[in-house]
Structures are given as C-alpha cells and as structure tokens.
C-alpha cells in the first residue's frame, strides 16, 4: 500500500513539470541542417542546373521513385529532359544525395508537403528546381571535371594541367 501511495504522489508531482509537447503549427521544432526532408534540385554558383542526368540517384533509390531522361543542350552540357520524383513513394533516406556526383539533388529540412490528391505528390523538375545552391554553396561540377563544354576546353578545369601533345614526347 505504501508503494501505491508513493506512486500516486510521484504522478501528482508530474503535473507541475513543464509539458513536453511542441504545439505545432504555432511552434515548430528546430531541425538540423542535415535533416532529410523535401528533395530539391540545385543550381551551381553561376546559375546553371547542376544535374547532369547521370541516373545515379534513380539507380540507388531503394523504392524507385525517381524517373529522368538525359538530353544534351546547345552548350554541350547534359541536362535532364524531365526529372520526376514520386514524393509519396520517397522514403527520405538520402541515398540519392549521397550518390549524386554534382551535389545537384539534396534533401532539405522541410516536411510540410501535404496534398489532398495523390497525383499532386508527383513532383516534376519545375517543382524540384530551386534557384540557389542548396547546402553546398561553392561547388561547380564542371569546374573540376575533365569534360569539354563550350567555354571550357580540355585541361582548363581547376587543378588540371593542360593535355600533353604526345607527338612532342617522341625522341
């Protein structure tokens, strides 16, 4: 009986503790920057799309929610023709962000995506593309890769030496 009375007293004391509930939507919890929420496609610091339609993200996606098709634009850069993510299938695992070689696809700390109709949860490229650089501000893939596009020839990337003319090496 004593333990029962003690339990009652302890439970009663809990009524003077602060409540742990966060009253959403008036107050929202602070999320870390690496929190895996809504997916976005980012641009590089020059304003061009980062995505090179390499299909690595759709290959690694465990629930196959990413669909895209590659195309080459007039400057010689690969771009996706369409880029579709089915957000109702997405499990927000972040594997696509880890797989992406150009830091194009990123997960942001946003979760307020409720829709009334399921078809509105399939996001196209214009829904995913943002005008900023996301979480990796200084990175431009084409500046460090060896690919030749208009405005940058072979050997003109950062940390890259110009190509050697083999015939000048002959004895």
């Amino acid at each position: 009986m004593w333990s029962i009375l003690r339990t009652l007293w302890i439970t009663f004391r809990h009524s003077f503790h602060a409540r742990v509930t966060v009253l959403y939507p008036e107050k929202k919890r602070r999320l870390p920057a690496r929190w895996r929420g809504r997916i976005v496609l980012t641009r590089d610091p020059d304003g061009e799309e980062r995505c090179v339609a390499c299909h690595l993200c759709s290959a690694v996606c465990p629930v196959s929610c990413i669909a895209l098709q590659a195309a080459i634009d007039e400057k010689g850069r690969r771009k996706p023709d369409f880029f579709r993510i089915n957000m109702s299938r997405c499990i927000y695992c972040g594997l696509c962000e880890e797989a992406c070689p150009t830091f194009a696809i990123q997960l942001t700390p946003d979760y307020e995506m409720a829709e009334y109709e399921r078809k509105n949860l399939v996001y196209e490229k214009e829904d995913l593309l943002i005008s900023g650089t996301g979480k990796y501000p200084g990175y431009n893939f084409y500046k460090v890769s060896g690919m030749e596009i208009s405005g940058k020839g072979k050997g003109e990337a950062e940390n890259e030496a110009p190509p050697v003319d083999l015939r000048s090496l002959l004895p």
Partner: protein
Amino acid sequence: MSAVGLSIVVILGVLIGTLLFAAGIIWFERRLLAVFQERYGPNRAGPFGVLQVVADMLKIFTKENWIAPFADKAVFVIAPGIIMITTLASFAVIPIAPAILVSDIDIGLLYFLAMSSFAVYSVALAGWASNSKYSLLGSIRAVGQMVSYEVFMGLSLMGVVLMAGSFSLRDIVEAQAGMWYVVPQFVGFVVFFIAGLAETRRIPFDLPEAESELVAGYHTEYSGFKFAMFYVGEYIGITLISMMIVTLFFGGWQGPFLPPFIWFIVKTLAFIAFFILVRAALPRPRYDQLLSFGWKLMLPLALLNLAVTGGIVLAVGK
C-alpha cells in the same frame, strides 16, 4: 409553484445536469490525464478543447449501427440500457443541496447499493450476448470482480449507518454537521473508495475492459450509440461514486461561506480528480491478485471496521 411542478423541475434538472456533468467529466479526464503525463490534452476544438466532447458525441452518433450477426440481438441492445438506467436512477437519492433532492426515501443507501448491483447484469449480459471470445473473457472477469467487491462495499457503509442511525442519505449528511465521517470511519472510507473503483471498472480494476489486453473486453462488439452508452455510463458511475463518497464521508453540501451546491460540486470534482490520478498512476493487478485482495484483505477489514464501530457506538450509548 406547485409541489409537483417543483419536483419535476428538480428531477429534470438532476437528470440533465448529471448527463451534462458526465460529458464534461470526459473532457476533464482527458485534460487532467494529460497534465499528469506532462502533455496537453485536447486543446484544438473550442477554447481549451471543451468542444472535443461535442465532436466525439457527433462522431459516435453518426456511426453505423452494427449489431454482430452472431450476437443475441435483444439482449445485446438492452445491456447498455440497463447500466444507464440503473446508474441514472441512483442519482435520485443523492442530496446535492438542502433543496435539491429528488427523493428523500428513508432507505436511500440501500437503494443505492441495490442499483449498483444491477451493473453486474449489464456487463454480464453484454459479454454473453456478444457471443465472442474477448467479450466473454471480459465479462467473466467483470462479473467475478464486481460481485466480490460488492460484498464489502455494502459492509463498509454500515459503519456510517451505525453512526448516523439511519439509512436516509439526507439524515447521514445532516448527522455530519459536527464532524465529517471520514475521521472516525477512515477505514470504511478507504474500503468504500476501493470498492467504488472496482464497481465502476476503473483502473486499477479495469481488467474487464483491459484496453491493452482484451481489445475492449465486454464492449468489444459494441459501436456507435450503444458504445457511447457504455462509455458515458462509466463516467456517470464515477460521478455517482464520487458523490456518494462526498455525501457519506465528507459532509455532503456542508461548508463555510460558499452556497451548499457549490461545495458539493467542488468536493465531487476533487474526488473525480483523485479517481483520475489513480488511473494515471497505478498498474493493473493480475486477476487472481485482484480477487484475493478483495476477499482476503478488504472483506476482513470491512468486517473489523463494522465490529469496532458497533462496539464503540454500543459503548457510548448513542
């Protein structure tokens, strides 16, 4: 106003007031449980969530009226009605204030005990008529528990009757003008409180419904309005037991400064809050532990209390 007219006003007032009060207790319990559990209860529907009960009731009234095809239809429908009728009928004898008493019969306490015995019928019939395993197990537990705890519920009150010299609840309240009976009859109060918890099937004696074990026990197969009757009937039972404790042990409507009705309501609310605290705090004992607690500890205690009270009353020569 004629006597008959006044009586009708009092009757309707007590009936409707009780139903509204029990509905309000639903809100009170959810908010108070949340306070004990360091969270908010319902606070979206209406200011402080008071319209949550209205929303719940609307939801339950619009549910499909489904009676299990394998159930015994007539008994199935009657069972929740029995508990509502008998529990509401018990409110007729409770003296809420000197002027608010529906029926001042001179065996008020016996009447209350008789009505609470009917609750066993309701649970037993509900479980049996449902014709399903969980319901049957729930009602078996309920019948055993309620019949066992009823024995000393009556015995624990006999000490109060001995001291007041009457079964009439009004006389018992007025006999407490000098000292509330909780002081001399503390053992009787504790035994009656525990028996009241068991009769209303309230935690820690809620094995019949045992939300985590038996789905919903004897009211598993019930939905819609019939379930609402069981649900609200439970809260009406809590209100009834709280009011009886206040009447029998805590001086009813007596108290300084405030009007008697307010005192009665304040004391009743205090006991309902204590019922809710008990729900928030205590675990559920095993069924055999529950029964042996009743028969081996509570019953001898009630008999001892009765014997000692009888001896002292006889010796003092009231």
